[in-house]
């Protein structure tokens, strides 16, 4: 069997958007192989229409295993369920998201099924002669792109970053085969228990999942000025990022730090304001689709890596950007 599988993600009664992105990645691979695209969903009971959305976004088959223990991630439990499915059905390829879930479960599973796993792929294609998965990923701070194969072990496993591909256009009413997988109580791992979950306020989206990220650096000069970044971000519908200098000064929390010792992100738009573009910072944004920067020093490295760079005072430029958004609001 040459089936391509994706691991769908669930949170609070919803199927996470990244699942549909994974289906888009998987669809093109399944089409090159002439095989089926299957989504694995491990979740508590969930509305049928939500499960069906997986078909509408490209899945041919959905393996759905329901149990209340899938409410929160428990790597051992999830991995047991996946291992059993994988052993029974031997998929050719298994893709997951490079999220806190995918990055935890898939390595755990890779050991159990004795196969390799390639993290954070930016390109996945099928090698014509061999039908093998070619997995391309940035390495060494994004300085090189490595192409990796898993020639002998199955499934060939890889993770891809959220927002690195658009979901396919939803085909309302598209159908597929739904297979319910019975939950085996032996899978349940009791050693770890989630006691409480705190969910961020609505607009504080994580920088890894955001399509657009506006980041501020030391050029903002002080904490109060950092507000400017949040305002521009909210105009653009973007998440807020920061350089390490900004984080170390306590202007914003570590979860917003972009770079080598922060997060590596691949948004469609990355806007760097008052950030010099040190190698360690650039390491986190090399795979962004478009980079825009605002900096008053024309020799800053960030300028060289930008698609569009404004050389000017960030306070004046950002003030003008806000005004322009205001004007557009009035006219639209």
């Amino acid at each position, binding site marked *: 069997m040459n089936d391509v599988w994706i691991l769908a993600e669930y949170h609070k009664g919803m199927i996470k958007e990244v699942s549909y992105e994974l289906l888009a990645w998987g669809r093109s691979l399944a089409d090159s192989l002439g095989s089926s695209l299957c989504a694995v969903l491990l979740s508590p009971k969930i509305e049928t229409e939500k499960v069906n959305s997986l078909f509408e976004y490209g899945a041919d088959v959905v393996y759905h295993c329901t149990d209340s223990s899938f409410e929160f991630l428990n790597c051992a439990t999830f991995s047991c369920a996946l291992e059993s499915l994988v052993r029974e059905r031997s998929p050719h390829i298994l893709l997951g998201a490079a*999220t806190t879930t995918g990055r935890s479960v898939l390595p755990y599973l890779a050991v159990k099924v004795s196969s390799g796993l390639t993290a954070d792929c930016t390109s996945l294609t099928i090698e014509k002669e061999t039908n093998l998965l070619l997995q391309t990923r940035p390495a060494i701070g994004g300085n090189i792109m*490595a192409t990796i194969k898993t*020639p002998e072990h199955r499934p060939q496993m890889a993770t891809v970053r959220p927002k690195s591909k658009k979901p396919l256009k939803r085909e309302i009413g598209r159908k597929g085969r739904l297979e319910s997988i019975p939950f085996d109580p032996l899978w349940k791992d009791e*050693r*770890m228990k989630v006691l409480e979950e705190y969910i961020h306020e609505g607009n504080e989206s994580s920088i*890894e999942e955001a399509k657009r990220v506006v980041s501020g650096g030391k050029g903002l000069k002080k904490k109060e000025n950092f507000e400017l970044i949040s305002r521009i971000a909210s105009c653009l519908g973007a998440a807020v990022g920061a350089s390490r200098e900004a984080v170390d000064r306590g202007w914003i929390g570590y979860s917003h730090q972009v770079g080598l010792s922060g997060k*590596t992100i691949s948004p469609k738009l990355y806007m760097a304001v008052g950030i010099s573009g040190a190698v360690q910072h650039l390491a986190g944004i090399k795979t962004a689709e478009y980079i825009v920067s605002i900096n008053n020093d024309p020799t800053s490295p960030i300028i060289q890596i930008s698609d569009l760079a404004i050389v*000017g*005072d960030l306070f004046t430029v950002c003030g003008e950007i806000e005004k322009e958004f205001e004007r557009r609001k009035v006219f639209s």
Partner: protein
Amino acid sequence: MVIVVPIKQVPETSNVQMDSVTGVMIRSGSKAILNPLDLYAIESALRYKEACDARVIAVTMGPQSAMKVLKEAIAMGCDDAVHISDRAFAGADTWSTSYTLAKAIAGMGKVDLIITGERATDGDTGQVGPEIASWLNLPLVTYVSQLIEMRSDSMMVKRMTEEGYQKLEVTLPALITVLKEVATVRLSTLKGKMRAMDMIIPTRTVKDLDVEPSYLGLKGSPTKVVKIEQARVKRDALIIEAMEADKVPDAVISLFDFLEDKQLLEKGESR
């Protein structure tokens, strides 16, 4: 109790050479340091030690030069260190690295807790920690941002997720991977440095570990690097001069034109 902290030596800058034939990193030349994110794993272990009276063992798999990061761990306050090194381990991917480390840890007797960094700044996979947990069948908690309660048989921690965070409890033995937020790292003390200097750290080779030879190194790795390319670094920077205030409005219009042209202004699907 016994806490093991696997730490890794990584190249200092992003300026690293790769062997284009084997796809393996050439380590000579660039300066090597302790993976900055592993400092937080060491710090977490030391805090645990202060709370529960533990023995902390740092372990690394790497060439002879990796001994240096173990000395750093000792200087910070770790009690012991183990160096795993053999030509047979060279070129291992995460699967094979985690296998070797798991075997070494299994050989240490009763271990209560393993703490790894979130990821190494060179490989950048974050897989080795979870994979060690899997080899040893341990419960795994990733992305730990706070140690809320440390007991000798269980712990309560905060774990970051995309949506927010979770408060959870895990029984020991377990493996956790920690984020930078977990603690502020201490400096090494003079006493620690002296101890590190005098300490003789054992090196374990294939002979000392109960390992399956076909799982080791480049040969034993399921994943194979088939091609290495330079990443696209430069972009066709359109540079707009706007140092004088009167040039700013036009610059901003150009910015909006750019954003519109690339369809970056569309609202709605903002996340």
